[in-house]
């Protein structure tokens, strides 16, 4: 097995980790630290590209479950090994992370930090988060996965708690506790989920010790091979342990309440990673751990998950409609989207699986972009409230365009990336779960409503809103706001259109939205063999044959 160790994935984990240490070492000089962090992120991106092209789709189609395997023993007493490897699903998630991190860094470049915080700390934490994310996706040992799953919390906790809430201009004294509250809530929810999962991880080990000739193990492949022999009653308990952790992380209603708080208080950069990638760990976990390791339990508990998923789609959409806080709004749309992904996963068909995985990628891109666009609005107005803005397209047309593109992608307009994935999920889910699919489809209508309504309120109509007015005129000025912002007063206003840095941040995302909207093929090709393997592990055949591409 150890004939050919492939160190590529190990390098992918270590580069950002060591990079973050290096960035901290440079904290005396924030400018250099930022550049160094961006450099590390770009190196990571290149390395990820190398990984992408090292991955052989034909080998995956030929039945090789994991590629680029690295495997060394870790704690023999527990049977844990440091085993890394990727299938198509993990690979696209790692790629998504690698793409988003430099963009996030670019978008945070000019962020105001809370008093007394250094930029170096922020960027180091971003890199540390990336390292744990790659680890979570690349781990093929359940124990190692758990370790990364928990480790992931810590940098994100500090990102929210130390750097959050600084985007609002008003020096509101109540702000700081709010940010702490969000950080602690995030940490406790996740930790509780993680500890419940730990119970299942240990349980899995104990079950495997009884069943496998070689004693207890955490190796995913061995546990999967054993899965069919585990009685369903045991599977259900173990499944629930993993499921609760993932349902909190995803988040699924009713365990979602931490996300709007964390999303609202997180600095934009951290928020993008939180909603864009961190939460995908949960849906990834469903596909990698819940389904293959507990197939019987997954099938018998699927109705529970589907109900939660559909409730989430509708309920979160309604909440999103009612939000005045833009960051909470994005968080709620994200909860709704997770409902779609969960629906696709627990509908058990190749198409729906493919759609769900593609949705995970697309959601990272579109929601990330929406978050960044929202952040740019907030950076200009110093307020998170929709009602503080109005008519911005007159002064910031390019930003309005970017916001609209991300919004339309988020509501899955044909031609954008999300359309492909949402369509695949719905068409793949319908044959097995028609009722849930029909209800979920209603969510699309709500999506159009909440996205367009926010767009309309913030960008359309006459210039209005407290934040806009405050930026226009000093006290006592009776100038027309439009004239002030577009004419002579423009120089002193904070409402300028996108600067080159912001264009550079948004452009790759816009490109990806349309690229994946029209040509999802290359990504689907990477995903599909792994999706087929997952289907086999679940032990179900497609309800409708021959529809899959």
């Amino acid at each position: 097995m150890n004939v050919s160790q492939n160190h590529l994935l190990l390098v992918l984990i270590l580069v950002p980790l060591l990079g973050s240490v290096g960035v901290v070492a440079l904290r005396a000089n924030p400018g250099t630290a930022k550049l160094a962090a961006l450099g590390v992120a770009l190196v990571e991106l290149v390395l990820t590209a190398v990984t992408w092209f090292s991955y052989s789709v034909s080998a995956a189609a030929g039945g090789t479950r994991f590629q680029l395997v690295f495997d060394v023993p870790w704690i023999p007493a527990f049977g844990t090994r440091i085993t890394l490897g990727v299938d198509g699903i993990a690979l696209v998630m790692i790629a998504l992370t690698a793409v988003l991190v430099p963009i996030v860094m670019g978008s945070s470049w000019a962020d105001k930090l809370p008093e007394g915080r250094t930029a170096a700390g922020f960027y180091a934490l971003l890199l540390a988060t990336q390292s744990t994310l790659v680890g979570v996706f690349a781990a093929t040992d359940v124990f190692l996965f758990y370790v990364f799953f928990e480790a992931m919390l810590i940098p994100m906790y500090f990102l929210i708690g130390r750097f959050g809430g600084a985007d609002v201009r008003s020096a509101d004294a109540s702000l700081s506790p709010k940010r702490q509250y969000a950080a602690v809530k995030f940490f406790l929810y996740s930790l509780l989920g993680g500890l419940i999962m730990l119970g299942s991880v240990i349980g899995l080990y104990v079950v495997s010790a009884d069943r496998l000739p070689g004693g207890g193990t955490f190796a995913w492949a061995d546990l999967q091979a054993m899965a069919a022999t585990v009685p369903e009653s045991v599977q259900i308990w173990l499944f629930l342990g993993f499921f609760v952790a993932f349902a909190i992380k995803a988040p699924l209603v009713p365990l979602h309440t931490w996300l709007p708080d964390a999303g609202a208080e997180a600095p934009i950069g951290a928020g993008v990673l939180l909603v864009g990638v961190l939460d995908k760990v949960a849906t990834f976990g469903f596909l990698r751990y819940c389904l293959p390791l507990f197939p019987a339990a997954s099938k018998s508990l699927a109705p529970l998950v589907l109900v939660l998923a559909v409730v989430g789609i509708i309920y979160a959409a309604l909440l999103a409609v009612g939000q005045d806080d833009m960051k909470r709004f994005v968080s709620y749309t994200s909860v709704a989207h997770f409902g779609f992904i969960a629906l696709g996963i627990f509908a058990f068909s190749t198409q729906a699986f493919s759609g769900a995985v593609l949705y995970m990628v697309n959601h990272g891109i579109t929601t990330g972009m929406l978050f960044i666009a929202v952040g740019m609005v907030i950076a200009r107005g110093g307020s998170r409230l929709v009602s503080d803005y109005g008519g911005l397209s007159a002064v910031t047309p390019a930003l309005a365009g970017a916001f609209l593109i991300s919004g339309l992608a988020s509501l899955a307009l044909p031609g954008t990336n999300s359309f492909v994935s949402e369509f695949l999920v719905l068409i793949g889910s319908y044959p097995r779960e028609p009722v849930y699919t029909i209800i979920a489809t209603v969510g699309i209508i709500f999506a159009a409503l909440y996205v367009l309504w926010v767009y309309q309120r913030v960008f359309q109509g006459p210039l209005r809103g407290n934040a806009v007015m405050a930026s226009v005129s000093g006290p006592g000025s009776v100038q027309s706001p439009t004239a002030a912002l577009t004419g002579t007063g423009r120089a002193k206003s904070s409402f300028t259109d996108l600067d080159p840095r912001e264009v550079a941040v948004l452009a790759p995302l816009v490109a990806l939205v349309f690229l994946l909207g029209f040509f999802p093929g290359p990504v689907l090709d990477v995903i599909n063999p792994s999706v087929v393997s997952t289907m086999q592990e679940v032990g179900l055949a497609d309800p409708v044959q021959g529809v899959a591409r």
Partner: protein
Amino acid sequence: MTGLVLAQGAPITAPEVAYFAISPLLVVLGAACAGVLVEAFVPRHQRWAAQVGLTLLALVTAGVLLVAYARGGAPAATTLAGAISVDSPTLFLWGTLLGLTVAGVLLIADRSVEPGGAFVTDAAAGGSGRSGPVGTVQDRITAGRTGMQTEVLPLTLFALGGMMTFCAANDLLTMFVALEVLSLPLYLMCGLARRRRLLSQEAAVKYFLLGAFASAFFLYGVALLYGYAGSVRLADIAGASVASQRSDTLLFGGLALLVVGLLFKAAVGPFHTWTPDVYQGAPTPVTAFMSAATKVAAFGAILRVLTVAFGDSRWEWRGVLWAVAIASMVIGAVIGLTQTDVKRMVAYSSIAHAGFILIGAIAITEQGLSGTMFYLLSYGFTSLAVFGVISLVRDADGEATHLSQWAGLAKRSPLVAGVMTFLLLALAGIPLTSGFTGKFAVFSAALADGMAPLVVVALIASAVAAFFYLRVIVLMYFSEPAPDGPTVTVPGAFTTAAITLGVLITLLLGVAPTLALSWAAGGPFVS
């Protein structure tokens, strides 16, 4: 039985003594006696150096002898007519205790954090008096001239000797004597604080009174068990519990009383009431030593008693200890939430941890034994380092232990805050720290032995307890420092070394625990 029942007039044969096997114990107790002589005969200004040198030398020598004996591969055996059992668990626990004591002594001996050392026996209350307000230049001069009260070091060695005997004792009487030898010095050490002397002395009295109670319980238990089995040897009790026709009431009554005494020492709820007061009142270096080492010794003894003497009857008593473990975890986690003093908070955390350890101890399997001992090792060093850090955060009145005083510490002293955060995460059981590895070892042993509900309770308790660790991290990192908040004393070499040792072991046992796990799994108890 030969050692106990000797016919009148029969020739008395001296018991065999495996001197090499018990040499670490002899060195420690010998050095303690020598320390008393040093205290009596060496001039005051030389005592500190002499005592510290003697103590550390003794600990290192004991450690070297222990390693030499363990590597020599001598079979596990009992010695001193079966009173002491030097087996694999004993060696592991002795090693743990010696390591913890080295770190503890480093903290205790340090004179840089608290000028003149943290210990006095006769200074006036309130830190003022003949040496002036502590912290002033005058006080530093005085302190430098008089040196600290060094009785504390031989007392530490006596306590250590008692602890080592306690977890190696193979009969209940030896265990009782060891219990007293370890307890009496600790009672004294709790009352020696230079600051907040009323609190300190209250702690000592409280500890003594309750400890005496617990000892009495223990002794009653021994008496009942002797009545049942006709012997105080653990192996004989085990034999009698299988074969004897006597009433089980004696057996389980005796066990109950015995275990109350042991659980008291281990600070397991609901026998924990002394813990927060004593941890808070005692001088912090003593708390560090006491919290870490006493737990190791007490759980070592609990493991031995439960495994050797009561292993066969475990189905009868395990339900009760389930309840005790749950009570301890819940009390520790829930009451810990309401604490506003760092030392009390860590005390409640230790009660919760005692519940976790007890889960492993009642598994009575090889896995349970090794997991529990590993947990003791990892928890001991983490907790010791936590108290070490606490002793550094000070204001004009001494240690600033109120939580509000810790606000914004990260800004003033990023390194100390970072170290404390790491240690707190270890206490919370986050992966890549020893706390996680220990929890994993204990919980997997418990689950394998069919205690799934207990493990679930433990996991939930861990999540609850995480909140109060998190609260400290929040305070240190996310809050603004108070204008007249405490400063962080730059620690001297001794304290730095002790904290570094604790942090390194916490990290090492989290990342690469293989070696320690294999030591812990060295072999079963021998009686």
